[in-house]
């Protein structure tokens, strides 16, 4: 069998002579689209840094940026799967609002009747209830979309209105506060960060994971004697990834606690403050860890599992997927359940960060989430998109608003800029895809 394969001439068009850059890209198998996006992000960061006289690229600002992006980033990972199957979910902002209210009421009003104040089970139960409600909402919408055949646009537009109304109904519009102490760690802040040592450990584990992944991929391909990447390319990729991870940890570890909090901390722990003050690093914020964890899991699900393969196949050709024996309706319903669960995690992060649940929470988040996914390379025509791209898209969107706030741009102008950036980004992407065809 393999003899036939090797003796017959290759059936491909004559390939162009490759220049050094193209050869490099081919050897490393890097995704040029993703590189373009990272370049765009860096340009935006540099631009803001210059125009804000050096306020943007500081540990403090980057740390805050990471925390502020996490809720949208978590939801964007699910939106990728939704859009890949040629659907849309307009309800995520309202799901976030409604689930946030439920989480708030559960921990601040219902559970304290049965459990002591600050009981460790409170935050766990509140979180589980929230995620369950999110998944149930997703299941209901997904059922109507997949099994009753109502377009996702309409179903989730209805969901947007219904759940925003429902969020109000939970407490008749009253804001619920404060949240449980432990629960609040999910929102970040000095307490909700893991500190310098743990951050380094997380960084090292992540680096090891990258190396292991590269190694495993190589071993797998060796198993069948498939062409391998050049060894230098493997080292290059591993080196870049590890440098990036350790760099990010270093930045998070360069952002110290504010003086007031350090003072309180020193008083509570009977430490005498040294002369120049005490440097206690934030380290990686817990919501950021949650977002990264979700991103890794969703990347894994979308590329390495049957479910993920079916999602993409349905997006590429729904009829072919059905003829191949895939239960396309059930897959679609599961995607919306997943989206609901992710919106609930987003709700947990944002209620924890605000230390309150309000009925307006998450308003317009659906647009940010969709924009993040689309800027991140998810095609609205279906069939294409990556989780990592959507997460970078979320950071990019958040960078724009943070940067403009730093520059003191008015809110209306901010909206105008974000709107234009969205359209231009998708236009550039269309051009890119045409060239790649």
């Amino acid at each position, binding site marked *: *069998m*393999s003899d*036939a*394969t090797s*003796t*017959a*001439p*290759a*059936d*491909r068009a004559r390939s162009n002579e490759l220049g050094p850059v193209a050869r490099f890209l081919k050897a490393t198998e890097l995704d040029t689209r993703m590189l373009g996006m990272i370049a765009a992000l860096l340009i935006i960061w540099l631009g803001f840094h210059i125009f804000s006289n050096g306020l943007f690229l500081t540990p403090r600002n980057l740390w805050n940026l990471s925390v502020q992006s996490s809720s949208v980033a978590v939801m964007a990972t699910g939106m990728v799967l939704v859009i890949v199957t040629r659907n849309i979910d307009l309800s995520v902002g309202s799901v976030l609002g409604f689930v946030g209210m439920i989480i708030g009421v559960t921990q601040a009003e219902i559970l304290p009747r049965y459990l002591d104040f600050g009981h460790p089970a409170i935050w766990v139960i509140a979180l589980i209830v929230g995620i369950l409600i999110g998944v149930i909402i997703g299941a209901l919408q997904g059922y109507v979309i997949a099994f009753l055949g109502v377009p996702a646009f309409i179903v989730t537009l209805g969901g947007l209105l219904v759940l925003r109304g429902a969020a109000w109904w939970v407490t008749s519009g009253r804001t619920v506060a404060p949240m449980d102490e432990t629960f609040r760690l999910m929102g970040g802040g000095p307490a909700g960060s893991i500190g310098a040592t743990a951050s380094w450990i997380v960084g090292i584990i992540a680096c090891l994971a990258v190396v292991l992944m590269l190694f495993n991929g190589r071993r*797998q*391909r060796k*198993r*069948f004697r*498939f062409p391998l990447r050049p060894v230098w390319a493997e080292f290059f990729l591993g080196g870049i990834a590890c440098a990036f991870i350790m760099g990010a940890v270093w930045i998070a570890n360069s952002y110290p606690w504010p003086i007031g909090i350090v003072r309180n901390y020193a008083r509570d722990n009977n430490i005498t403050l040294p002369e120049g003050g005490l440097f206690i690093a934030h380290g990686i914020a817990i919501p950021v860890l949650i977002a990264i964890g979700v991103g890794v899991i969703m990347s*894994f699900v979308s*590329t*390495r*599992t*049957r479910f993920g*393969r*079916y999602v*993409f*196949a*349905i*997006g*590429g*050709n729904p*009829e*072919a*997927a*059905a*003829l*191949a*024996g*895939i*239960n396309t309706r059930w897959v679609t319903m599961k995607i919306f359940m997943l989206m609901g669960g992710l919106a609930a995690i987003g709700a947990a992060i944002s209620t924890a960060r605000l230390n309150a649940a309000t009925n307006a929470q998450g308003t317009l988040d659906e647009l940010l989430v969709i924009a993040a996914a689309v800027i991140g390379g998810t095609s609205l025509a279906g*069939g*294409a998109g990556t989780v990592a791209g959507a997460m970078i898209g979320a950071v990019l969107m958040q960078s724009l608003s943070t940067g403009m706030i730093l520059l003191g741009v008015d809110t209306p102008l901010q909206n105008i800029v974000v709107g234009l950036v969205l359209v231009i980004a998708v236009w550039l992407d269309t051009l890119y895809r045409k060239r790649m*065809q």
Partner: protein
Amino acid sequence: MERKGPPLVELKNISIAFGGIRAVDDASVDLYPGEVVALLGHNGAGKSTLIKILSGAYKRDAGEIRVNGEEATIANPRDAKAYGIETIYQTLALADNVDAAANLFLGRELVTAWGTLDDVAMEDQARKVMGRLNPRFVRFKEPVVKLSGGQRQSVAIARAILFNARILIMDEPTAALGPQETAQVGELVKQLKADGIGIFLISHDIHDVFDLADRVCVMKNGQVVGTARTEDVTKDEVLGMIILGKCPPGATPGPGAMVVAAA
């Protein structure tokens, strides 16, 4: 051809209508192990619709499907595959955005001990089966949308033969293939036939049909005009069946045969 026991597949009095159109009307046809039955007819005669009922893509309005003499329940493509029925669709039915190996194993992915997709193992098998069909095919890493029409067709054929089909449905499998690849598919059909697989072959090429098929079944306007063993009829007679619906003496007439006025 020896015919011991019940037919491999028996489609009995199958009917289906789309809106007002009777796409298939009271059609019956059977298939024995190691036999190639060609389905012929003009465009829109109902050939694809009939076989899509067998492959589970459509639900019939009336009629019965028997596999090995026993009534079979085929409500969706998964059921059909469970009976060993594999189909090469006229439209190819490929997921355009994923690569050849992903298409070959769509719905039946190989997984590792961890339950994750075993992409390298799938690529390995894909290389083997594609090597059998189209040895010059090398673009395994690219989404099939970037392949030529014939390469896509090779992928669709490879998918059907990958899983040890017992009953193979080929709906115009060589429409986009070059002469060499067409000959290769012809060889493949003979080889599969020798392995005892039953094949429904839909084709407009009457020479191919006479070369490969044991029997022909001609459809017209959703009805079966007649069924005949290829050695009992001539090409012209078969053309007469297709165009005029006239059933020659060597054929068994079906409900769609033109009623010859008693003269």
